[in-house]
């Protein structure tokens, strides 16, 4: 494999750090400040996109920044897996930036400078994870994401927000320090290196028991992948403003988790080693529990964002399931699901935020008839739901197809059943939302309901809406789409379909990874 030495991955990371500085400097001029965010997101994507052709040609880009200690480098490596994650995340940052501006200004949120600067910093760290060349660099950026997103989760500074943010940091930081770091220590002790290498670095480097322990520690330590029982932080993080939930808690943060797990499986252990340790099937069954249980919990949630959060937990395990089944199809399915789920789930979160901003509704039960007033939003929601369920030609179908093929190749009928059951559950918790929006009469004017709405909103979205001048009892007639928010979500919905019809880019990269 040809290696090109270039500092482009460093530029891709640094560009949003530069944006942080500019955002803070221009804090008194909101329009200038927001233009830095947009500009940085576009340049960042351009830098990353410029590396795509190189990677598609089967080359990889490497760059060593500094050797901290012998064997401990800050080093970047751009390969197919990294570019797949980085290009998805950085592209969605552009749309999220536009959406954020709409959301934050509509709600007249406080501390917008802090919000935009930490958002940019989180994106720098996310791309850092995508382009890390060894486990140490990755761990650094992994922790940086946790710390940079904390102010975003705690944004509202209400007691609930701080409580949620605390749960968030306790799970993420706690698991990563307690388990992931010990796994890193053990890996270094056994292998003498932490570099990501195509067939793994641990083969023959320790007893089966040691290697199995390392694997389990990694799985437990990467709490960002939200495998049960380390999933509670994700629903807790839903106190964050919706754009944060959309980009960070449906794409950047959680995908960092599964991305790290894929790195560990493919580049620390290597497929053969995982297979020899008999971890493949056991792991697949273990994450299947998460797929089913999270979907069942999602069914019970009336709060829209909570339902989406549990859906995310379930979908993330698809990716890990695909990787662990270890057949060519399942691995491709798992990997492309990183992108497919990203586009669809961000659409759903965008819709949730759009509904909240335009209509001040947070609960599924309040959405009756909303499709008439917010047709774009609800249509996008419907399309993204189809993708989540896996209906062709939406993107989710591609992943499900490959995963299903993979489970047949692996002769794992129970896994196939898990996929089927989960598809039914997906349909069961997503389709009623669209049904309500388009086919039910609006329940405006009923006193009891109205009272309930008030209570729910106070509970789940905190005080932010209390001072925005609109109040809670916004009249049904006055609800209308907010353009700055509707445009991004329609775009992501369209892309969810387009990458279902033309999945070549992601499939090529996925096949490159497992080659």
């Amino acid at each position: 494999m040809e290696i090109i030495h270039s500092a482009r991955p460093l530029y891709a990371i640094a560009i949003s750090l530069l944006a942080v500085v500019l955002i803070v400097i221009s804090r008194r001029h909101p329009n200038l400040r927001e233009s830095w965010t947009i500009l940085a997101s576009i340049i960042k994507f351009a830098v990353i996109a410029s590396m795509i052709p190189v990677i598609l040609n089967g080359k990889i880009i490497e760059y060593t920044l500094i050797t901290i200690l012998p064997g401990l480098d800050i080093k970047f490596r751009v390969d197919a897996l990294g570019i797949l994650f980085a290009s998805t995340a950085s592209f969605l940052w552009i749309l999220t930036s536009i959406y954020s501006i709409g959301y934050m200004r509509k709600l007249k949120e406080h501390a917008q400078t802090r919000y935009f600067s930490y958002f940019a910093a989180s994106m720098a760290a996310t791309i850092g994870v995508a382009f890390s060349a060894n486990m140490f660099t990755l761990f650094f950026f992994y922790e940086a994401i946790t710390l940079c997103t904390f102010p975003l989760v705690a944004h509202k500074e209400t007691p609930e927000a701080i409580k949620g943010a605390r749960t968030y940091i306790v799970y993420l930081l706690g698991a990563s320090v307690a388990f992931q770091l010990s796994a890193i220590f053990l890996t270094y002790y056994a292998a003498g290196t932490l570099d990501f290498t195509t067939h793994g670095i641990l083969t023959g480097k320790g007893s089966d028991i040691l290697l199995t322990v390392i694997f389990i520690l990694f799985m437990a330590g990467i709490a960002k992948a939200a495998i049960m029982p380390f999933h509670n932080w994700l629903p807790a993080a839903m106190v964050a403003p919706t754009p944060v939930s959309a980009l960070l808690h449906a794409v950047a943060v959680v995908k960092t988790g599964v991305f790290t797990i894929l790195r560990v499986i493919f580049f620390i252990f290597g497929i053969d080693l995982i297979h020899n340790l008999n971890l493949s099937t056991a792991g697949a069954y273990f994450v299947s529990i998460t797929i089913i249980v999270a979907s069942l919990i999602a069914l019970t949630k009336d709060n829209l964002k909570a339902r989406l959060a549990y859906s995310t937990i379930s979908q993330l395990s698809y990716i890990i399931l695909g990787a662990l089944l270890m057949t060519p199809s399942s691995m491709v399915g798992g990997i492309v699901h990183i992108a497919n789920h990203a586009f669809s789930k961000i659409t759903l979160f965008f819709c949730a935020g759009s509904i909240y901003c335009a209509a001040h509704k947070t609960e599924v039960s309040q959405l009756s008839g909303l499709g008439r007033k917010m047709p774009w939003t609800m249509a996008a929601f419907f399309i993204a739901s189809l993708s989540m369920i896996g209906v062709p030609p939406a993107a989710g179908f591609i992943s499900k197809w490959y995963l299903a093929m993979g489970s047949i190749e692996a002769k794992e009928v129970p896994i196939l059943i898990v996929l089927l059951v989960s598809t039914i559950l997906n349909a069961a918790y997503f389709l009623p939302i669209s049904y309500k929006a388009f086919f039910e009469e609006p329940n405006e004017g009923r006193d009891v309901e109205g009272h309930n709405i008030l209570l729910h909103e106070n509970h789940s979205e905190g005080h932010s809406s209390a001072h925005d001048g609109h109040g809670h009892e916004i009249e049904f007639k006055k609800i209308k789409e907010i353009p700055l928010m509707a445009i991004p979500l329609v775009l992501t919905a369209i892309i969810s379909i387009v990458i279902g019809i033309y999945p070549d880019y992601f499939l090529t990269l996925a096949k490159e990874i497992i080659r």
Partner: protein
Amino acid sequence: MNIAGHLPILVIIIPLISAVFIPLLGRINRSAVCYFVLSVTFLSFLISISLLSMVMTSGRISYRLGGWEPPWGIEYVVDYLSGFVLTVVSFISFIVSIYSKRSVEKEIDGSKIPAFYCIYMLFITGLMGIVITGDIFNLYVFIEISALSAYVLIAMGKKKAALLASYNYLILGTIAATFILLGIGHLYMATGSLNMADLSKRLPALYGSHVVRTAFVFFTIGLSLKMALYPLHIWLPDAHSTAPSVISALLAAAALKVGAYALLRVVFTVFTVDFVQNVVPATKVFLVLAVLAIIAGSVLTIAQTNIKRMLAYSSIGQMGYIILGAAIMNPIAMTGSLIHILNHALMKSTLFLVAGSILYKTGIEDISGLKGMGKRMPYTMAAFTIGALSMIGAPLTVGFVSKWYLAIGALRANMWYIIPVILLSSLLTAVYCWRIIETIYFHKAPEDESMMTYNGHSTVVNDAPAGMTVPTLVLASLCIVLGFAAFIPVTVVTSAANMLLGAN
């Protein structure tokens, strides 16, 4: 012999003589005292650096006081270890001296300032003397110089409690000193020598002797008390938290480190690896004590509500790290232990200086009083955040480097059970540090019109003066720079670790 040959004595004699001149200078011009102290500590730092670089190029430096041959006369020794610790101590004293001007003006009565700085210089002299001397009785003398001056400095704290803390420390410090002196007496009785290098040659033949073993016990107990090794830490929280801010920083960042240095010196240079491993089960005892210190220290820290007290308690666990690395007994863990001398000095002095700035500006001592402080003192709080992250051991900070070496060293020694201890303590550290970070940045400041509300909502930035903020930020940025460029101190420390363990 040119001047370079006399550097080992100059690094001691300059601060010692300057201490005498400070009260005189104070009579002429009180405000000049601080600048004088500043230049003296800077000079000491320069000399330490050049001594260290001389050691790096040409090896161990031995200096004969008055030209007497070593086993009879007093010898000063600069090797990798003492050069390294000397540099750390003199650097921290220099930075703290910059900071001290404004802080001391606020915390010490004007008339007492010259006296304060006089004792301050004696204190630093004592610490550097402990590090540089190669004579075990001379070591005792310097321990007493530094300890006696520490009692005085602590007693200069503003609160009444400082007197009590100083008195308690005096009692326990005197017991410790007595133990050390008894240890010296026993060794002298057995060997007739006081020179460390000479002792280490004569002792192996006498390892069977009860006198030598008793001496070892006296030494370890005395020095453990000096470095506040759990459970001999009880004097530390009061002393460190009631002392004036600059003294707290110096006690935690320099005095404790020098105590640890003295213990390592006696255990590994006067006695040997062979003795502590095979003759007496010392390493096992140290290992258990270190683990206890790390866990108990962290738990006790969580219970604190006073900022300085919390920082003081956290030193107990951190000293445990230093002993842990030494007790694992391999070069990697020893490197972790020695590098932690530097790393903990940097982060703890950062944190104590931050506490001092808060005290200077607001008089707040309790953690709960820090609400909304992130907006009022942004630079100071940024320094605190860096120091706290470093304490937790976030990657690319100095704290991570120590933990990395300790963990890998423990694994190489097949002591996997050390890993959970290190990580548990990181988590406990995260609990007490994060609690403060959260209070600083995310809890709303109380509506107190006198200090912050302006136009109803915007908050006035009111950071500590530059003379205090800049040194704090320098230390904080070093926590990151040396976390990035960790290979620089590690090269020095690796040689020191190999030397202690007799590997080279």
